[in-house]
């Protein structure tokens, strides 16, 4: 396998050199030369206007995957409830299954989760595989992986999707490794290639600066994790119908599901159950806040909007607020309906974690702050003036002018 430059057509324009992030292209005697730093990412192939670069010698085995059919969703449970991302994926899975003309199934594993899992039928599910047992009351990666592998091996879906939650991001790679198939992390877009009937998995890399579309070759199922809040959940059926006839209760031999992990204890962060990705509104503070006590102002605003407080890395590193509140590449990726950035300049790592929010409001005294490049509404001003006024406006319901 190698990557080749067609010397006949290459003009040495150096466009490929410009886009190569790995320092792998040099222009020698007016032609592009690819060196050993190349990781075959394909960025140069994409950008070359003369189609002068190609990867050759990649063996394509023609495997028969005709016994794999259908789309299957993992419904992750947290404390007896199915996490929302599961329902979002059922809606997305429905769209993909319809396009392929196949059935949509889901698998739920947990303890006392049947009632919550039934809700998935309202989003278009055809069949639910339910493993409900007290052995699954804690998140023990190995036995969850074992149960998932059993279901996937038995029902052979062609596509398997799971939420890119922190548990999902550790569990699903294990499952893919056992099944010996590919896995694409943190997808933000899924589509079906009409001609080949395969799943096109699009995900951000380089902190959201680049999007890559990925396919699963030579293996099935095609597996992907998808970020929470990216797909929209759409109810298409009423909840009154009894869907019990569409549930397959999978009995497991509990003695064979002994985890190698011993859970010694669980602590809620700061005695509060904070998962900022669960909220529709996030009020975030950055360096401009200047201290931990100022976060109380943001907490008040967040409270009035039924939201939660977020923070930039600068604020967390300064010790003003705890790490679970951190938004960005080294913290959490959030997609709320409204994101209010207060005194956050907008480092690229921060933007990577929040730029897909529906509405972004930026309040900053520096009109040149990069946060304004992603904001929908910008206020150049002092957060210590603007935020208290906004709180007052929301509280009193009286016009300020």
């Amino acid at each position, binding site marked *: 396998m190698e990557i080749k430059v067609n010397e006949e057509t290459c003009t040495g324009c150096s466009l490929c050199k410009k886009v190569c992030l790995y320092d792998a292209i040099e222009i020698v005697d007016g032609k592009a030369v690819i060196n050993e730093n190349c990781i075959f990412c394909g960025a140069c192939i994409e950008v070359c206007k003369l189609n002068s670069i190609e990867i050759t010698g990649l063996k394509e085995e023609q495997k028969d995957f005709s016994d794999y059919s259908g789309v299957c969703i993992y419904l992750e449970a947290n404390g007896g409830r199915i996490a929302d991302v599961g329902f979002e994926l059922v809606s997305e899975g429905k769209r993909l299954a319809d396009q392929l003309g196949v059935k949509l199934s889901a698998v739920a594993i947990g303890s006392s989760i049947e009632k919550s899992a039934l809700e998935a039928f309202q989003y278009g599910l055809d069949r639910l595989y339910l493993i409900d047992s007290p052995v699954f009351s804690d998140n023990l990666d190995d036995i969850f992986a074992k149960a998932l592998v059993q279901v996937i091996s038995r029902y052979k879906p062609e596509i398997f999707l799971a939420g890119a939650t922190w548990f999902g991001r550790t569990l699903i790679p294990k499952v893919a490794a056992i099944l010996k198939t590919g*896995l694409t992390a943190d997808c933000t877009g899924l589509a079906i290639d009409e001609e080949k009937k395969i799943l*096109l998995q699009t995900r951000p890399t380089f902190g959201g600066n680049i999007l890559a579309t*990925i*396919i699963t070759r030579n293996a099935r199922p095609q597996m992907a994790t998808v970020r929470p809040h990216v797909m929209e959940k759409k109810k298409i059926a009423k909840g009154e119908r009894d869907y019990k006839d569409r549930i397959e209760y999978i009995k497991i031999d509990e003695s064979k599901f002994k985890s190698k992990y011993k859970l010694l204890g669980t602590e809620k962060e700061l005695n509060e*159950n904070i998962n900022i990705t669960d909220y529709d509104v996030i009020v975030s503070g950055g360096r401009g806040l200047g201290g931990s006590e100022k976060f109380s102002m943001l907490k008040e605003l967040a409270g009035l909007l039924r939201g939660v407080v977020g923070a930039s890395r600068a604020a967390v590193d300064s010790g003003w607020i705890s790490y679970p509140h951190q938004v960005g590449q080294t913290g959490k990726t959030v997609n709320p309906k409204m994101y209010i950035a207060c005194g956050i300049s907008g480092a690229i790592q921060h933007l990577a974690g929040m730029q897909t929010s529906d509405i972004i409001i930026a309040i900053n005294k520096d009109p040149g702050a990069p946060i304004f490049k992603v904001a929908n509404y910008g206020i150049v001003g002092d957060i210590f003036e603007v935020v208290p006024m*906004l709180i007052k406006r929301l509280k009193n319901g009286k016009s*300020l002018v």
Partner: protein
Amino acid sequence: MIRIKIVVCIKQVPGTTEIKIDPETNTLIREGIENIINPFDAYAIEEGVRIRERFNDGEVEVIALTMGPPQSREILKEAISVGVDSAILLSDRAFAGADTWATSTTLAKAINKIEDCRLIILGKQTLDGDTGQVGPELAQRLNIPFIGYASSILEINRNKMKVKRLMEDRYETFEINLPAAISVVKDINTPRVPSLRGKMKAKSAEIPVWDAKKLEANEDEVGLSGSYTQVVKIFTPKIKHEIKMIEGSPGEQVEQLYKELKELNII
């Protein structure tokens, strides 16, 4: 005497903070980007060194491992300068283009050659690929437990460890048997800066290079050929962005923002 080997898996990545997008062509401009040690891996290295410091001299050996082009040697030297004992570079054209599966295949083959490896430490994800999948896939290939997002190692001996992991909304403390693999988050420690002695050691360190032959790896199981996933298109997101700047006195600004949000039914 206890003998424990700890392998820290690290990666060289382009520092993304400096990436700029050419507004004309909507493509990335690479110029001036330096290759750096994946920032999350600095915490993995530091934790490996800190574990060694919990034991007597000579009981624990920390080995840095990376797969990459020959220039990745630089980050291994960096690891040695902050306290890692030795380093191994996995480098071969056949390894290029590996997805997370083929990467874990290659790393697993190397780790199987390191006798008595009791713990593998990784950063929670890389800056470029950003998947966080190599750790759990590697652990599965080696058939050992994996704890992701470790925020604290409470206890460790040759056979067992107590480790706390961070989930979205809670900490969970586990006891697991070794050998095992963990990935660490940044609040586990504060990485140290290289000492003068460390820099000297790094300068003179011999770093062995293991290729596909040394790993007894078939060309079909590593690199792009050994990958189950393949990138078919790479592109920069179209920026279709409009901002409404709200002018006026602070009171007027707040009032207008309030009206806008009311109209959008957000408040």
